């Protein structure tokens, strides 16, 4: 009787500590893990300039935004505050030929961004953020007209080459080479 009991004890692998070991490893990985999703402002750079002349763009279809080294913003030579940028861009892109000084259509509208060589990066990003906000607003408005919740929801549903809103309101942002300054 005693003998039998002893043998049964020896047969079992001690599994009680396993959970502890697993917990320890789990805690280690929990601490080490950084699930940092990369967020940022996406942009498309233009291909390098070639010898061909770029197609001429009419003056009214270009909006020149300049950010200088002090972080001041000029839109078509006209000083504006950071808060005004978004409205100005919306007005410019969504003009549809009404105002003869603003763009003819959203497809033709180009926002040209220029900085000084010693403009601070965060001033540039703040301004770019406003421009992106303007486009987002316009695209959201169009998506709502089509009965969608937002542009984001729309673009997730529709395949990329059938995205009508993107076609209608393209983000034509041109990055001009910075002014060497003094």
């Amino acid at each position, binding site marked *: 009787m005693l003998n039998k009991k002893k043998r049964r004890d020896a047969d079992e692998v001690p599994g009680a500590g396993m959970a502890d070991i*697993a917990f320890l490893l789990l805690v280690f990985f929990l601490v080490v893990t950084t699930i940092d999703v990369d967020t940022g*402002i*996406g942009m498309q750079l233009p291909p390098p300039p070639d010898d061909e002349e770029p197609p001429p763009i009419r003056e009214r279809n270009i909006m020149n935004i300049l950010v200088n080294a002090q972080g001041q913003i000029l839109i078509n030579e006209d000083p504006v505050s950071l808060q005004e940028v978004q409205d100005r861009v919306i007005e410019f892109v969504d003009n549809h030929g009404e105002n003869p000084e603003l763009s003819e259509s959203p497809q033709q509208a180009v926002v040209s961004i220029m900085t000084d060589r010693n*403009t601070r*990066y965060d001033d540039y*990003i703040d301004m770019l953020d406003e421009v992106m906000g303007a486009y987002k607003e316009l695209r959201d408005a169009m998506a709502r007209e089509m009965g969608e919740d937002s542009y984001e929801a729309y673009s997730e549903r529709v395949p990329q080459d059938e995205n009508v809103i993107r076609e209608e309101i393209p983000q034509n942002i041109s990055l001009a080479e910075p002014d060497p300054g003094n």
Partner: protein
Amino acid sequence: MSKFKKKAANTKQAVPTSAMPDIIFMLLIFFMVVTVLREVELLVRVNKTEARNIERIEQRRLISYIWIGPEILGAGQFGDTRVQIDDALVEDFGNIRQVMYDKITEEPRLIVSLRVDEESEMGIVSDVQEELRHAGTYRINYSTLEDL
């Protein structure tokens, strides 16, 4: 009567814990897969700036990073603004073109994430962008934090 009583007393009161290690292991494996140990040591300081209208990059594998910021000299000192790709500082800007060209031939859908210190100046950023244009890596992303 007594038989019935005995049966009821026999049922275990404790929560069965035999499956616990399995559950823990499952969690463990999940975190092991998700974890990305920091594979590069930053040689420049990058305090990211904030923006509101940002997008997420879902495909992490497509991302290649370029860091731009003041060089870390140790003891809380910072040097001039430098560019770091992978684990080395860039000495000659012409090299960026070659390095990025090699990367885009390997992965044509490459997205270059620019992680730029907020105090950097645009000159160096646009020099890097100029090299990227020549390398053919047109898709970039200005890495920012979310401004709430």
